[in-house]
C-alpha cells in the first residue's frame, strides 16, 4: 500500500478504529498493583514481546512482575517511573512502533540498562 501522499489513501483503506492496534490498552488507565482487570494479560503479552517481561502464564492480575516491567518501560521512555498505568505511559504504549524489542536477551542499553549515580541520575558514558 504505497501512496504518493496521504490524501491519496482511499477511504476504504482507512481503519474504522483510527487510534491503532493497541488502543484498547487505554482502558487500563489508572490500574495499579493488586487489581485484577480484563486486558492486563494482553498488556503483559505486549511487554513480553518487546522484552520487558518474561514469558509466563499471563493473567489479568496486576502483579509485581508487571509493575517492574512498567517501571523499566517508563525509564526507557523518559517517563515518570511510577510503576502505574498512568495516561502518559499508555499514550506511549499505544503508538505505532518498530517491531525490534527494546530489551534483547534480558539486556538493554536504553536508559534502563545504563548505570546510575547514587542520586538516581543516569550517566551517559562513551568509550573513546
Amino acid at each position, binding site marked *: 500500500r504505497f501512496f504518493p501522499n496521504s490524501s491519496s489513501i482511499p477511504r476504504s*483503506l482507512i481503519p474504522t478504529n483510527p487510534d491503532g492496534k493497541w488502543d484498547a490498552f487505554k482502558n487500563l488507565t489508572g490500574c495499579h498493583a493488586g487489581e485484577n482487570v480484563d486486558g492486563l494479560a494482553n498488556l503483559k503479552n505486549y511487554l513480553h514481546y518487546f522484552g520487558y517481561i518474561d514469558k509466563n502464564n499471563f493473567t489479568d492480575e496486576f502483579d509485581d512482575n508487571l509493575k517492574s516491567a512498567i517501571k523499566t518501560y517508563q525509564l526507557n521512555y523518559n517517563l515518570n517511573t511510577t510503576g502505574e498505568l498512568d495516561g502518559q505511559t499508555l499514550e506511549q504504549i499505544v503508538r505505532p512502533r518498530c517491531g525490534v524489542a527494546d530489551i534483547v536477551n534480558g539486556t538493554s542499553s*536504553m536508559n534502563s540498562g545504563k548505570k546510575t549515580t547514587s542520586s538516581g541520575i543516569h550517566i551517559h558514558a562513551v568509550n573513546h
Partner: protein
Amino acid sequence: YSFFPGTPRWPAGKTDLTYAFLPANNLPDSVKAVFSRAFQKWSAVIPLTFTETSSYVVADIRIGFHSGDHNDGEPFDGVLGTLAHAFSPPTGILHLDGDENWVVDGDVAASAVVSAVDLESVAVHELGHVLGLGHSSEREAIMYPTISTGTRKVDLAGDDVDGIQVLYGSNPNYNGSATSTTTTTTQERDTSGGGSRF
C-alpha cells in the same frame, strides 16, 4: 543510543554493502528512491557505501514488504501496531509491514488520515538496526522506538551519529552537523510535547 547484545557490526573489511528489494514486491521507483535517500543518511556520517543490486539472493541487505506471518517468527499485525523490523548485522534483513498505508513522497504531516505512515522515517530507523544500532531513549533520535502517524523524522540526531560512529568511525567528509527535524500533524498525540519515533 544502544547496541544489540555483543555489539555486532558489519565486518571491518566490508565497507561497500549492496542492497536489493524482494522481486515479488515489484516496487515502483519512487519507493526505491525512498530507501536510497535513507541509506544516504547513514553513509553521510560513516565510511560505508550502499549500492543497489538486482540480485536479491546475494545482496548484503535484503528489503521486503510482507503481510502477516512471513516465516521469520515475527508476524506483522496489520495496519499500525508494529510497522517494520530488522535484524542485527551481518544478517542484513529488513522487513516492512505491507498492510500499512505508506506515504512515499508526499507531506505526511498534511494528512487527514491518521493511519498514514511516512515510509522514509521508518526506513532510516530500520537501517539503523541493520547497521547495528538498538533503540535509543532520546526522543529526538531516529532510533527512538515509536513513531506517531502523520509524523516525518528522517534526519539523524546527534545521538544516532554518536552511536553509529562508535561502530564504524566517521565519514572523512562528515562535517559534524546533525540536525533532527520532525514535522507533525494536529493528529500528533504526543502529549509530552516532544518528537516522535518507532
